[in-house]
């Protein structure tokens, strides 16, 4: 037998709950034009999880550098810092059973305060910030919590309709404990008037699902005279308990 993971919780071995595919955006969303040629047209074939879906890679805290969760400084010259409103983004990673998800690798990326990405395909006229790269990562703690520092990204125009703008947002890539939990999403900021206008936001049908992507200002987590804070909880697919065992693990 494999030695237990570096945690006092039993490994998760159950199959995942079926994904609610109506809660997620549909593949074909013509308002977001790029989806038209990139959306499968045939129905996906469903099957219950096998070990190939239940298992997933593990990333230890050893991969993390000291500044990986500090986008204000991780690309800046020594002694300098990225320009923009200083914020903290924090929250918890949970699963659909509301259980904390520890050890989850979270990667995030974003535009700078002017709404410009550091990418060769980016053509927006807003200036690059020489001290801002735009990427970071962290791993959730035993209680599922995570946090990082960054600057608040700016909104920006993009070629879709004649005059479409993205609301300010941060991209998130999340690994659970199983490959079937793999997820990419975007976090929006409470009160941004561009949210309901955005064709990418509007790929989601249910207003409650859009609210789930909208982080509120969290005054309790701000650092006075330093940074405001936004709270963004992330929910990954939950697993069935392994009911055929005598003892219910963690449920």
């Amino acid at each position, binding site marked *: 037998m494999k030695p*237990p993971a570096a945690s006092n919780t039993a490994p998760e071995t159950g199959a995942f709950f079926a994904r609610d595919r109506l809660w997620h955006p549909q593949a074909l969303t013509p308002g977001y034009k790029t989806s038209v040629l990139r*959306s499968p047209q045939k129905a996906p074939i469903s099957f219950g999880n096998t070990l190939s879906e239940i298992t997933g*890679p593990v990333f230890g805290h050893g991969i993390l550098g000291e500044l990986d969760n500090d986008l204000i400084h991780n690309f800046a010259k020594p002694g300098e810092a990225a320009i923009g409103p200083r914020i903290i983004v924090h929250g918890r990673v949970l699963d659909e059973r509301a259980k904390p998800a520890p050890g989850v690798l979270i990667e995030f990326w974003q535009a700078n305060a002017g709404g410009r990405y550091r990418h060769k395909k980016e053509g927006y006229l807003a200036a690059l910030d020489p001290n801002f790269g735009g990427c970071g990562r962290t791993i959730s703690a035993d209680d599922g919590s995570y946090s990082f520092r960054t600057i608040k990204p700016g909104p920006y125009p993009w070629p879709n309709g004649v005059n479409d703008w993205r609301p300010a947002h941060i991209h998130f890539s999340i690994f659970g404990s199983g490959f079937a939990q793999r997820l990419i999403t975007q976090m929006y900021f409470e009160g941004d008037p561009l949210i309901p206008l955005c064709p990418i936001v509007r790929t989601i049908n249910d207003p409650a699902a859009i609210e789930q992507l909208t982080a509120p200002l969290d005054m309790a987590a701000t650092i006075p005279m330093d940074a405001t804070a936004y709270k963004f909880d992330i929910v990954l697919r939950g697993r069935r308990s392994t009911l055929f065992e005598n003892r219910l693990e963690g449920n």
Partner: protein
Amino acid sequence: MPQSLTTLKETPSQTGGPYVHIGLTPNFCGITGVWATDLGTAMVNRKTKGERITITGRVFDGLEAPIRDCVVEIWQADAGGLYPSPSETRGAADPNFTGWGRCPADGETGEFHFETIKPGRVPFPDGRLQAPHISLWIVARGINLGLNTRLYFGDEAKANAEDPILARIEHRDRLKTLIAEKKGSTYTFDVHLQGPKETVFFDI
């Protein structure tokens, strides 16, 4: 009123967008010095057990143009059919194999490449063996929810014929969209998002 169930809704997906590389493969897109290497670029080392293989391919859109801004991730068992994961309870996988790889499509050709080993067979929940396979997850601008599919091996006809997942596919002529053909030590796996050659995608 009965008690409410304490279940939550999964965080809804959004597209990875055109700048997905900044977050997933920053060194690939020129953001260097933040971390040393991009995750998922090396799956094997000198000591890894198993048959060395290369997986390559492209992802094509509905007009059969290669998608040059996608990112492909793969997840597979080791040569003995064990996953390097805490959820693997049947034994310890090869410590010299990560099982997981990530590759951005080439910005010009759209090609992705993985240097890996051929996986062993993994049991289905009822104990039957699945054919050797690799799970793929594809994200890109224009893809609203990451796409799941599987690569099976063209030189495993007997195992493929008894695979319980492949058996689920009603339109048998679509099976070939999941089979990578071998040339030398390279298996080529092209993915088609639409049209008559549309790859079988899975709801897992």
